[in-house]
C-alpha cells in the first residue's frame, strides 16, 4: 500500500519533468533518472531479500517519514544548485525557522496557521538575504551561504535561549507531520510529495524554472540577452529558503519541539540527495524527480543497513560510496553524450 502511493506520487511528478524544459539535456536527464530509479528499485529488492523485516508496511512508512525533512530541503535546494549556486545554510536555517515557529506558537501565543506560515516566511526571508548577498553584493554563493549558516546557528541558539522549545502543548501541531490523512502515510510524506509536484511544475512550466536553467547554463549569456538575472536569482534563493522554513516546521512537528542545537550537517545530506538524483553541481542540469529519488535512495540505504544491523561507521562509508558512484555514472553518461551521442 505504502509502495503504491510512492509510485503514484513519483508518476505524477514525472509528467511535468518528462514534458521537459526543452533544453538539450532532456534525453540524458531522463536516462539519469531511469538510472537513479533503477538503483532505488535494486536497493529495495536487495534489502527485501536480505531481511524479511525490511519490506513491511510499517518499515516502508518509516523510510518515507525519514525522507521527509531531508527531501524537503533537497527539492528546494535543487533550484539553487541548477543555477550553479550552492546553499550551505539550509541545515541550520531550518533549525532557526523551527525556533521562530516555536516562539510564535508558545511565547507569542499565535494561532497554528500564523506559526506555520511565519516559519515558512522567515525561511523565505533567509533565502532572500542569501540571494541579496549573492546578486547585489556579488559574494560567491558558497561564502554567502556559509556566513548565513553560521549566523542561523547562532541566532537559533540566541532566540531559543539555548533551550529546546516544547510544542506538545500546541493543539494540532504534531498532526502537521504525523497525522495521517491517508492511512499509514504520515502527513510529512504527503507534504514532501505535494511540494515536489509543485516545484516540478515550477521548474519545468514557468518562467522562473526556465530562468533557473538558463542562469545555470550560462549566466553571462542570459544577462546579455537582456534578462535581469539578479531578480530571478533572488526568486530562486527565496523559494529555496521557503522550503527550508517548511522543513523546519515539519521537523519541529515531528519532534513536538524546536531543538536549537540540531541542523548542522543536514545541508550536506540534502546536497548529496540532489547530486545522487543527477543534478549537476556545475549548474544548468537537474530535476526535482531526480532529487526525490536521490533522497529516497539515501533513506532506503540507511534504513536497510540499520535493519541489517550494519555498524554505524560503515553506514556512513557506504553512503559516501553511493554519492561517488552516482556522480561518476553521471559523468560517464555525460561524456558519452558529448562524444557524438544524441545531443
Amino acid at each position, binding site marked *: 500500500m505504502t509502495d503504491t502511493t510512492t509510485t503514484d506520487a513519483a508518476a505524477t511528478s514525472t509528467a511535468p519533468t518528462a514534458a521537459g524544459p526543452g533544453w538539450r539535456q532532456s534525453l540524458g536527464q531522463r536516462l539519469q533518472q531511469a538510472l537513479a530509479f533503477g538503483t532505488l528499485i535494486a536497493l529495495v529488492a536487495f534489502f527485501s531479500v536480505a531481511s524479511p523485516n525490511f519490506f513491511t508496511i510499517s518499515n516502508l512508512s518509516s523510510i518515507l517519514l525519514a525522507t521527509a525533512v531531508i527531501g524537503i530541503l533537497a527539492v528546494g535546494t535543487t533550484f539553487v544548485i541548477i543555477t550553479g549556486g550552492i546553499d550551505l545554510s539550509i541545515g541550520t536555517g531550518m533549525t532557526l525557522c523551527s525556533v521562530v515557529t516555536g516562539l510564535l506558537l508558545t511565547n507569542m501565543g499565535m494561532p497554528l496557521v500564523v506559526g506555520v506560515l511565519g516559519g515558512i516566511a522567515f525561511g523565505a526571508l533567509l533565502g532572500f538575504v542569501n540571494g541579496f548577498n549573492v546578486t547585489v553584493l556579488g559574494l560567491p554563493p558558497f561564502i554567502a551561504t*556559509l556566513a548565513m*549558516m553560521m549566523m542561523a546557528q547562532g541566532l537559533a541558539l*540566541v532566540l531559543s535561549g*539555548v533551550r529546546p522549545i516544547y510544542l506538545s502543548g500546541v493543539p494540532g501541531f504534531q498532526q502537521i507531520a504525523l497525522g495521517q490523512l491517508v492511512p499509514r502515510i504520515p502527513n510529512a510524506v504527503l507534504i514532501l510529495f505535494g511540494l515536489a509536484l509543485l516545484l516540478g511544475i515550477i521548474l519545468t512550466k514557468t518562467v522562473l524554472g526556465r530562468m533557473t536553467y538558463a542562469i545555470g547554463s550560462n549566466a553571462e549569456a542570459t544577462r546579455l540577452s537582456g534578462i535581469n538575472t539578479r531578480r530571478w536569482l533572488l526568486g530562486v534563493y527565496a523559494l529555496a529558503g521557503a522550503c527550508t522554513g517548511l522543513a523546519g516546521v515539519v521537523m519541529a512537528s515531528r*519532534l513536538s519541539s524546536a531543538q536549537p542545537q540540531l541542523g*548542522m550537517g543536514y545541508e*550536506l545530506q540534502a546536497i548529496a540527495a540532489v547530486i545522487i538524483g543527477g543534478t549537476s553541481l556545475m549548474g544548468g542540469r537537474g530535476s526535482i524527480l531526480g532529487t526525490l529519488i536521490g533522497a529516497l535512495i539515501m533513506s532506503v540505504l540507511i534504513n536497510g543497513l540499520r535493519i541489517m544491523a550494519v555498524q554505524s561507521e560503515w553506514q556512513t562509508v557506504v553512503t559516501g560510496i553511493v554519492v561517488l558512484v552516482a556522480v561518476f555514472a553521471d559523468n560517464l553518461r555525460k561524456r558519452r553524450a558529448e562524444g557524438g551521442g544524441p545531443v
Partner: protein
Amino acid sequence: MKNTRVALLSMAAATALTLSACGGGGSDELVEDPAAEGEGGDAAAASGESGGAQDGEYDIALVSKGFQHQFWQAVQSGAEEKAEELGVSITFDGPASETEVDAQLQMLRSAIERQPDAIGYAALDPEACIPLLEQAQEAEIPVVEFDAGCNTDIEKTIAKTDSLAAGALAAEHMAELIDNEGKVAVVAHSQINSTGVERRDGFVNKIEEDYPDIEVVDIQYGDGDHLKSADIAKAMISANPDLKGLYGTNEGSAIGVVNAVNELGMQPGELTIVGFDSGQAQIDAIKSGVMAGLITQDPQGIGRATVDSAVKAIEGEELPEEIDTGSYWVDQSNIDDEDIQAMLYE
C-alpha cells in the same frame, strides 16, 4: 569532467570549512551569554578581569565542555552555588558545542594565562589537553577535573559520574522490567566520547555477566540527534519484531526512542524504554508511561564537588583520585521526590 572535479573539491572544502569555521566563529560571543545571565555572572566577570584573588577571595577558572546542553547549565549553577557558600569567585567557560576541541583548548590557555588560584577542567579530548595541563603545573596552578579527565600523570582529582556504574544500573532496571529475558537494543550517542562509550559498555557488560537470557541484538549511534535516533530506533524495532527493550544513552537518543514508539503507534509499555539524563520530554514520557525510567546524574553535584575540591586543592589538602557524584534511577514512583527533582532539569 574537470569542472565536476572542481565542484567536488569545493564540496569537500565546504565540509571542512563549515566544521572549522563554525568552531571558531560561533563560540566567542555566545559563551558570554549564560555567564552573564547566571546568578554568579557579576562576580565571575569581575574576577575575570582582575586576574587573581581579590579581597582574599580565591579565583577559580572553570572550563567546561559546553554550555549549550542544559546539563552544563546545571553544572554551572551547582558550581556557582558552592562558590557563594565558600566565598570564592568563579568563571565558567565552554565552547558552543562538544565537538569544538580547539576552541575549548583556547579557553583553557586563556584561563592559565590569567593565573587563577585553581582551574577546573572537563576534557573534550583526553590527549590534546596534556601540554596545557603541564603548563598549568609549571605555573603552579592546581587543576581539578570534572566530568571527563585528561590523560596526564599529574596528580589531580576528578569529580564525575561513574558512567560504567550508571550504565550497569540501567541494565539492572531493564532486566528487572523485562523479567530477565528477551532481546534488547541500544541507541547510543557516541562511539568516541567517554560517556557514550562507558554508558554503553556498563550496560552491555552487566547484561552479559548477569543476565544470560537477555541478548543485546544491536547497538547504533545517533549522535544524540533526536530525528536520527528516532529513525534508528524504528529500524531496530522493524528488524526485531520481538524486541522487548530499548536503552537510549543520552537525552537526544532516549527521546528519539520515545518518538519512534509514538510514531509507530505502539502502546505505552509495549516496549520497555530506559533513558538517560533529564529534560522535559523525558520527564513527560515517564509520567505518561511511555518511558519506564531513566538514569540521572547529579550535574549540580558535579559543579559543587568541583568547586569544593578546587578550594581544597588550593589549600593543599589531600584529595581522592576520583569523586563519584552518583547516578540514580528515576521512574514514576519517585519522579516527584524532592531529592530526585533537584537532579532533574527541564
